[in-house]
């Protein structure tokens, strides 16, 4: 028995340690000490984030059951950071409404985070499955956290039942994959994949779980209801952290495991992207509730993220990670402001934002920046992330897809501007009175603010992400997947620049003829 594997799982172990400390503290600390539970949790969490930031190289443990790469580590850092921001935004809310359950809130959230860690780092379908379940079952408890709130309960039911349904389909897909290949290890599977219909079916059914988590259309229907019903902080968590995990896992699995069957999943993703972006945008236009609105916005953002998967290149991975980082700041800022406003005025209607700038200029400015960033307006970070993810798709020759996505950005700009319009332009006789938010929220908002403003212009973030992603892809021998060679477009792109060399490891799988080709 070799337990050294645990030592390699630095990020997870630190998180588990954190979970245990908090659990025990919550259980055994005297009532007085429980007052400092939340600050302590945040502080320890910062430590955990710092640990995840330490450089790491690609490695495997437990016979390939667990594997990590710099990119995965970065994704974990991002998720942790996002969670921390959610915690900061939740502090006051917990204190006011659920002080009794504060330990549970942190515990459950961190458990789902752990599940997401394993989603990202899984090297085996079972690991992945447990990870995704760990990331969704406790999450449903969080969704119905406000027990007295009927909407919250309804959202919880919708979430858990739909999640179970999706995971059932996903599980069925895994079973087909198992039947088709005889292995559940990510590293073994590519060799066994020949692109038979059974395998393709397995793959697509399996992906249901991920698509569901990312809430891509047509797997999205729960999203808006759950975001609306759940406590705002939980919606924020769902929209950012959970999505990050799913996106990174989607990329890893589709490239690492199903890279050889790109020809099969590419049209599927193509359609999903177009549907997600377009339909979600159409829905978002009509929304009157800010949380529902943000839900649809996050669906369409997810569509953009999948562009990075379609690109299937190191730049694609960078694009996804970077997009998630930028998206995290902007979306959390939006949800943060939404939660503050909601607590103040008691509802989440967009109409209550009318004239907000007059009374609460800072909140409005932050919200506006968040909206601009989500819409991809320079000099905010969202512009850069959109540009790069589009660039990675164009690099692979997906002109039409990118064109559709780009035209959709106009629709999205429209509804993001509606929020800005509400705050700055719409007249309101009695706007929300001026209020002071608590210091934790303010710290979070300042962090988001700087994130939105700086993470684009300061190229360090992108460049670092790119280094990590490239390194990860090279280590997995995946820097040049098959998707690069054949493009959907009739016109091949001559003189395409690929700054990494294809490695041989993948060539065996890459050269499989697909049965249906």
């Amino acid at each position: 028995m070799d337990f050294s594997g645990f030592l390699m799982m630095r990020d997870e172990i630190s998180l588990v340690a954190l979970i245990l400390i908090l659990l025990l503290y919550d259980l055994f600390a005297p009532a007085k000490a429980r007052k400092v539970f939340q600050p302590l949790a945040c502080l320890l969490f910062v430590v955990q984030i710092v640990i995840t930031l330490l450089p790491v190289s690609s490695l495997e443990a437990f016979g390939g059951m667990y594997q990590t790469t710099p990119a995965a580590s970065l994704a974990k850092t991002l998720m942790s950071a996002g969670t921390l921001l959610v915690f900061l935004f939740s502090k006051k809310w917990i204190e006011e409404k659920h002080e009794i359950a504060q330990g549970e809130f942190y515990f459950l959230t961190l458990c789902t985070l752990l599940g997401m860690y394993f989603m990202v780092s899984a090297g085996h379908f079972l690991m992945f499955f447990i990870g995704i379940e760990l990331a969704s079952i406790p999450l449903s408890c969080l969704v119905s956290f406000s027990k007295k709130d009927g909407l919250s309960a309804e959202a919880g039911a919708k979430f858990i039942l739909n999640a179970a349904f999706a995971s059932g389909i996903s599980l069925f897909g895994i079973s087909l994959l198992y039947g088709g290949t005889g292995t559940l290890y990510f590293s073994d599977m590519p060799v066994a994949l020949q692109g038979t219909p059974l395998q393709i079916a397995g793959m697509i059914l399996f992906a249901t779980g991920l698509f569901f988590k990312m809430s891509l259309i047509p797997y999205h229907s729960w999203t808006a209801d759950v975001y609306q019903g759940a406590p705002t902080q939980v919606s924020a968590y769902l929209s950012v952290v959970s999505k990050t995990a799913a996106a990174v896992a989607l990329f890893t699995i589709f490239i690492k495991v199903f890279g050889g069957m790109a020809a099969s999943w590419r049209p599927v993703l193509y359609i999903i992207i177009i549907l997600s972006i377009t339909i979600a945008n159409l829905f978002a236009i009509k929304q009157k509730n800010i949380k529902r609105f943000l839900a649809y916005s996050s669906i369409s953002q997810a569509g953009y993220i999948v562009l990075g998967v379609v690109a299937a290149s190191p730049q694609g991975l960078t694009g996804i990670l970077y997009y998630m980082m930028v998206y995290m700041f902007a979306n959390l800022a939006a949800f943060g402001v939404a939660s503050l406003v909601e607590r103040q005025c008691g509802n989440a209607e967009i109409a209550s934002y009318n004239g907000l700038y007059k009374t609460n200029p800072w909140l409005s400015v932050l919200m506006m920046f968040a909206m601009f960033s989500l819409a991809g307006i320079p000099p905010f970070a969202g512009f850069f992330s959109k540009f790069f993810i589009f660039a990675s798709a164009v690099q692979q020759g997906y002109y039409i897809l990118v064109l559709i996505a780009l035209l959709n950005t106009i629709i999205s700009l429209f509804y993001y501007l509606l929020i800005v319009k509400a705050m700055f332009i719409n007249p309101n006789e009695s706007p929300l009175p001026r209020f002071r938010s608590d210091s934790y929220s303010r710290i979070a908002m300042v962090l988001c603010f700087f994130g939105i403003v700086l993470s684009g212009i300061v190229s360090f973030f992108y460049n670092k992400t790119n280094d990590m992603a490239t390194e990860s892809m090279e280590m997995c021998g995946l820097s040049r997947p098959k998707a690069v060679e054949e493009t959907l477009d009739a016109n091949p792109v001559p003189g395409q620049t690929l700054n990494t060399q294809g490695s041989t490891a993948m060539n065996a799988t890459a050269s499989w003829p697909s049965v249906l080709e």
Partner: protein
Amino acid sequence: MNLLSIFVVIPVLMLAGLFLSRTRQQARVISATGASLLLVAAVVLGVLFAAERHAGNTAEMLFTASAQWFPAWNIGYSVGVDGISVLMILLSAIIVFTGIFTSWNIDPLPKEYFMWFCLLSTGVFGFFISLDLFTMFMFYEVALIPMYLLIGVWGSGKKEYAAMKLTLMLMAGSALLMLGILGIYFGSGATSMNIMEIAQSSIPMALQKFFFPLTFIGFGVLGALFPFHTWSPDGHASAPTAVSMLHAGVLMKLGGYGCFRVAMFLMPEAANELAWIFLILTGISVVYGAFSACVQKDLKYINAYSSVSHCGLVLFALLMMNTTAMTGAIMQMLSHGLMTALFFALIGMIYGRTHTRDIREMGGLMKIMPFLGVAYVIAGLASLGLPGLSGFVAEMNVFVGSFQHSDTFHRVLTLIAVTSIVITAVYILRVIGKILYGPVQNQAHLKLTDAVWFERLPVVVLIIAIASIGLYPGWIAEWIHQALAPIVESLTVAAL
């Protein structure tokens, strides 16, 4: 620090200063100082540029500097200017300067207004100094988005509709543009997003045919290319004065500038092949805008349609692809920029007094406010191409240049475009006749006053600029010729 970066740094510093300012007066002073500095810097740049050229420096771009930014995509912050950029910077500086003074009494939220204004100018200047496609595009969008709030908050009339329409249409253009830029970069196989380097490599024809229209329309939307021009009337009509000035005066020039600097320069083959489509569209723009202006009743609408016509002429001339016509196009950009700014400034001042822009409700204003009246007449004369003012110089270059085209199709189109000079006269004189001349329509107007110093200053500056181009176009032409040489060459080579 690179000389050119000043043009981005000053507005950013202005932003910071405004951010810290507390009162209206402070905001004004900071803006005015910044704008003056920009103007001085632009003039200094012009002088240094001229000196450098005089000293025999024949590099395409001067004062270049470059720094890595996103190495993964070979994106850098590369700046540099040629004669055309210098002129555009001068134009922008003048209009920003005059715009600040025109919005001296802006209400409400002066601080925020000036901040957005500064952001807009950052974008404009950044665009003109950039050589890197990405940076250029970024600044382009930076310049677009403040329009939404500037119109939405400080505008008038159906401002919300107009602001949204304008923003969405322009951003739709820039969405096409983004794809175009990416296509250019990947298509060229260049190892840099620097325009000058991409120009060295050639993009395959099949790709050019796809990306050229995208890029050209992308920029063309901002250049009021028919039928993507309808943001312009509503937008201009609703925008506050200085914003209309800056938008019509400078922002619309971004479109034209981008069209030749990016679309035509980098994809000359497709430009040659597809020019006819856009020539027809721009030809329509020219005549159509002018005709539409004839029956408008709102001063700003008249001017906006006139902009459609004039900017159409810019793109039209660019597509003629010879030095003379393109020189004319650049001159038309300058000229149109200055005179529309003047127009909008005057309209704003008149509107500020009469509280109407409906030409039927005004009359005999010349008697009441002679300064504004005379300035309006001068602007009108510049617009209809009176020799001695900038419009004439530009139009003649365009017409003569276009007519030198050996292809009959081009010459016939030129003749159609020439008709605009008559139609322009019709609507300009109609307005002047209606609002300035004749008996006073509204007795309440008799009490109105003429312009005060901070209104006179921008007007005088603009008139001087218009006249100086009109009287002595030689130096401008020389700079433009020099700057156009490589572009025209690549277009000519591609045509063969």
